[in-house]
């Protein structure tokens, strides 16, 4: 990439000596002004980075350190530290059933949303990746859920899921099956939240998949056609391996996104019934902002961070080996 290339330029140690300057000034000016130009370039670079770095420092790096600090303390409801407790917060979390319930729920949520969401997106992208008439309209339709936010999406599905008057249950009775208590039955609540989530995320996943497929050269398809490969065979043997970078990227982003799911759960189920949809972020929210236990909330947030980090590293180390980069 460009970065590395720039660093191999003949610039020993970025010192301010005249000979390190780039070709654009080295022919034009005297050593003194070169030195000044070089210094100005460095100052300018830091000035350009300063706004971003300031925000990151205040609202990303400082809070990350503060989370570590808070996790070792008991706090009062104002968030002031009251008492140093060492690793007691972590011990309490790891000994509580609620932590394992919420962890299990989070994993279940990931299993229910990520593979299904990706499969639906791949299918729709494959169907619209051709030159038939009207594809523009279908592409727009399948991208539409991207405009649906978690707030509006949850309100719509809350009404669709209504146990007695909802239209989904009406369709079920038309099919002759028993209506389902979508959001109040502990067996169904997570499935319902997952279904709504898959729908809500479909637009973004679809766009990713479609652009992945559009990145594959047409020649490859033409040659498979000459070879007499059928559409399914071509899809599984040629298209899937060729878009594997997209698949990998989407799976990493989706898993991280699923760990962070909160809005739909807060609106649709509030973690219930019987904690069946109480995922980790919802549990952190409850501890920190409903019970005002910021210390234990921070400890849980750090555990969540560690889990996401480990899983992402795992994905890069083991899954990425199977990815075929062109």
């Amino acid at each position, binding site marked *: 990439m*460009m970065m590395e290339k720039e660093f191999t330029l003949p610039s020993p140690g970025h010192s301010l000596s005249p000979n390190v300057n780039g070709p654009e000034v080295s022919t034009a000016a005297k050593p003194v002004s070169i030195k000044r130009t070089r210094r100005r370039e460095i100052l300018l670079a830091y000035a350009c980075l300063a706004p971003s770095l300031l925000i990151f420092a205040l609202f990303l790096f400082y809070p990350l350190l503060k989370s570590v600090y808070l996790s070792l303390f008991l706090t009062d409801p104002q968030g002031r530290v009251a008492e140093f407790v060492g690793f007691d917060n972590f011990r309490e979390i790891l000994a509580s059933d609620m932590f394992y319930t919420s962890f299990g729920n989070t994993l279940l949520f990931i299993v229910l949303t990520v593979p299904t969401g990706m499969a639906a997106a791949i299918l729709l992208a494959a169907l619209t990746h051709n030159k038939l008439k009207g594809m523009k309209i279908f592409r727009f339709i399948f991208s539409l859920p991207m405009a649906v*936010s978690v707030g509006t999406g949850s309100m719509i599905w809350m009404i669709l899921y209504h146990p007695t008057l909802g239209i989904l249950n009406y369709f079920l009775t038309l099919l002759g099956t028993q209506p389902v208590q979508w959001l109040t039955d502990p067996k169904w609540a997570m499935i319902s939240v997952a279904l709504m989530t898959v729908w809500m995320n479909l637009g973004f996943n679809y766009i990713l998949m479609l652009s992945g497929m559009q990145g594959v050269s047409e020649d490859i398809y033409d040659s498979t056609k000459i070879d007499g490969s059928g559409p399914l065979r071509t899809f599984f043997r040629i298209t899937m391996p060729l878009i594997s970078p997209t698949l990998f990227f989407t799976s990493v982003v989706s898993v991280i996104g699923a760990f962070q799911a909160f809005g739909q759960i807060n609106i649709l189920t509030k973690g219930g019934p019987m904690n069946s949809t109480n995922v980790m972020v919802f549990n952190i929210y409850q501890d920190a902002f409903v019970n005002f236990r910021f210390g234990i909330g921070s400890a849980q947030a750090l555990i969540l961070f560690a889990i996401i980090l480990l899983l992402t590293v795992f994905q890069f180390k083991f899954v990425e080996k199977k990815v075929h980069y062109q």
Partner: protein
Amino acid sequence: MNMRLMPKSFIYIALLLGSLAVLFPLLYTLSTSLMSEAESAVYPPPLLPEAVNLSNFAKVIDTIPVLTFIGNSLIVSIAIMLGQIVTASLAAYAFAFLRFPGKTLLFSLFLATMMIPWEVIMIPNYLTVKSLNWLDTYQGLIIPFLATAFGTFLLRQTFLQLPKELFEAARVDGCGHVRVFLSMVLPLSIPGIATLGVYSFLNNWNMYLWPLLTTNRVEMRTVQIGIGMLQFEEMNSWNLILSGVLLLLLPSLLLLALGLKPLVRGITAGALKG
């Protein structure tokens, strides 16, 4: 995928079924928002309204401050979007065109910020914003989000794809970095900036947890939080709830219709090839 070998009719049937599934919740919202209260309460639920009934929209605007919510969301989303374009394009210029000590280190630092989920640091951030007395203010909703590593990478990628000879010629002619940045790099990178703009706006518009934590007064609520009011005020009239939902959906639907193209192009370029 090479669908040319499948019968066209099969593809169209599959596409229509897919569209129906994806669109159904939205069409249901549109249809119910046009019904009268009596119609929307009937069981079995009718699929289409008997007559187009626009009074719901007026009524929902009277009942809850929908326009205030939309206004707040617009202010916050646009302010963050513009701020991110400024901070990201400056940082991207430094990473793409300037040489300075510590470049690799700072670049990795930017990368690292993408690994920190917002939920992990929301507690200290809430306490910070609270201690600054920024609860229930625009600055509390805007300032923490004014820098973006994703946007910086996206724009750096865009800048690096610009023809290099052009800038070298300009520099030899005595053009300073500031002028090169303002009069050449930025105008030539408008497609990339548009991508960042659309992506950023949609993300900001959809933000849920942070405004939930930091706003309490009704006048400061954004769309995503305000929409919950529909749930309590009008739980029994679905036509009103869904016409409120539709009003709150309109701005982002409109933006998606206008911005889908730069978004698709940019996501491909920035996320997958970056």
